[in-house]
């Protein structure tokens, strides 16, 4: 008996975690599949069995939903634009910090990390304050330069860039962190050898830094792209999806369907579509950016 216990020990140790994840991830996911095929009304006293089956209607409606499609476009816009800027900016800062002879890392990192330490909801509110038409610091700067004030959050074309701005402010430091730890892992000797061989700065970047950075680069792009589909807090606190639906991201749209329209079955259908898209995108990123094994 004891011997059997010993043999099964790793499984016993894994069990609590597995049970927890089964209960709070796998079971909800399975349950959510069932929800897709039912009409879920949130009403006191109604149980699971009172909800009528509706077959594929939720999914059909989801694919025909103009507003949902728009929210996907908004999400993908954020993903492409904000993540690209975060990546380039983050890479630049990481390269600067990694330069030989640069001192004061602790100070720089502490200042850089402050945006990440704020709850995202607070970050959104902070920028609401900074971008305010009349009293915001950004507009004070703009008017003092002689330009008319800009209504960042009330303007249908500027609201989405504002959301992106907050995302860039909050997550570029994260990109810096990962890329910097990747840069630090590159042995110094490689560069010295390259200099001996007469390689210039551009050449050594292209032949040493870039290939060795392939893994952290993929990870950072993967994590940040997936995160774009999670964007919710910023939208909630900065614009609440508006004006119109110009900043309604997929997560926020689903939230509104589920918790202000109380259409849980429909929201479940939408969230499954998003889930599939997220996995497809992550598959593509891994497929095309995964460094060759050596």
């Amino acid at each position, binding site marked *: 008996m004891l011997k059997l216990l010993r043999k099964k020990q*790793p*499984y*016993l*140790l*894994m069990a*609590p*975690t597995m049970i*927890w*994840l089964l209960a*709070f*991830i796998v079971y*909800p*996911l399975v*349950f*959510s599949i069932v*929800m897709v095929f039912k009409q*879920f009304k949130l009403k006191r006293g109604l149980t699971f069995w009172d909800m009528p089956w509706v077959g594929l209607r939720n999914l059909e409606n989801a694919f025909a939903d103009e507003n949902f499609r728009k929210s996907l476009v908004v999400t993908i816009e954020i993903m492409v634009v904000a993540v690209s800027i975060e990546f380039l900016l983050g890479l630049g800062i990481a390269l*600067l910090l990694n*330069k030989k002879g640069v001192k*004061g890392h602790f100070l*720089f990192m*502490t*200042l*850089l990390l*402050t*945006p*990440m*330490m*704020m*709850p995202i*909801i*607070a*970050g959104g*509110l902070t920028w609401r*304050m900074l971008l305010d038409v009349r*009293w915001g*610091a950004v507009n*004070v700067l703009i008017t003092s330069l002689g330009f008319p004030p800009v209504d960042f959050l009330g303007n249908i074309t500027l609201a989405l860039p504002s959301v992106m701005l907050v995302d860039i402010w909050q997550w570029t*430091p994260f990109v810096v*962190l990962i890329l910097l*730890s990747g840069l630090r*892992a590159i042995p110094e000797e490689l560069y010295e050898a390259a200099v001996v061989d007469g390689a210039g700065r551009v050449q050594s970047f292209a032949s040493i830094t870039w290939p060795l950075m392939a*893994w952290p680069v993929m*990870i950072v792009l993967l*994590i940040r792209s997936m995160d774009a589909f*999670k964007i*919710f*807090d910023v939208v909630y*606190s900065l614009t*609440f999806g508006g004006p119109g639906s110009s900043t309604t991201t*997929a*997560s926020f749209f*689903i939230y509104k369907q*589920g*918790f202000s329209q109380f259409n849980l079955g429909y929201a*479940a259908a939408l*969230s499954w579509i*998003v*889930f599939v898209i*997220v996995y497809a995108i992550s598959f593509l990123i891994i497929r095309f950016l995964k460094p060759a094994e050596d």
Partner: protein
Amino acid sequence: MTKKKATRRFLGLASTHVLLLFIACLFAFPTAWVFMTSFKTPREYYSMPPGFLPNNFQIFHYREAFAPWTVNPTDMATNYWVEESAGRVESVTPQIINSLIITFGSVVLALAVGSPAAYAISRYRFKGSKDLSLWVLSTRMMPPIVTAIPIYWIMRQLNLAGTHIGLIMVYVMLNLPFVVWMMKGFFDDIPIEIEEAARIDGCGPLTLVFRILLPLAIGGIVATALFCVFISWTEFLFAVILTDSSSQTLPVALSLFRQDRGILWGQMAAVIVVATLPILIITLFLQQQVVKGLTAGAVKN
């Protein structure tokens, strides 16, 4: 010639530092601005142009936000020009207490549930160990809204919606991938010889855990716990759907500030500062560990 080269090098390095400092300050500016605003009178933050530093550091926004009963509205109105807000704000002290309970509960539970799994992954090669550990890590990639919808319904059916326990259980799930991966790294650093030696000396499994493993891993446990504090303290989506007025957390209380057209900036800034400060202090003291948590699984394969 070499002197010229040295000067150029020095200038290059100096400009790099200036540029870095400028960028870093740009990133820190919004946080600093909120911090300053929380100490300003409305007269100051509604003035043109508003200064960066408050004239003198006033703490009445903190009093309004956390202990409104100490505020005398008429006194406030005459002295600080805050007639429109004074006395109409509800205290956020209950929400802070809720946040503390939920954060503490979820972090302790997540460590208790996740650490054994981390130990198993670190010490044993068993069938499916690699797949299981990768799956655990991959759960953090999923958009939370996907599980939020069914979890909301399930919690409602179990009468756990709106309770502290319901949210704690969900936060344990959010923390688990980080606990497993961070703690695995820390267990990897403990040499297995120590355990073997203890076992040969006749150490039972319980003594081994409490006398040998826990003391050796304490640094890692603290770092992991603080990282989980960060997650639980700032989470918003599950908090907003799973809490009611009796269990609201601090981020939910913050989100309520946006509802009226005229935001109460001073109080809002004070609450933002209080919501941010604990995490900021943690990071200041444990930068390395926090960085390790954020990059968990990202750098080392």
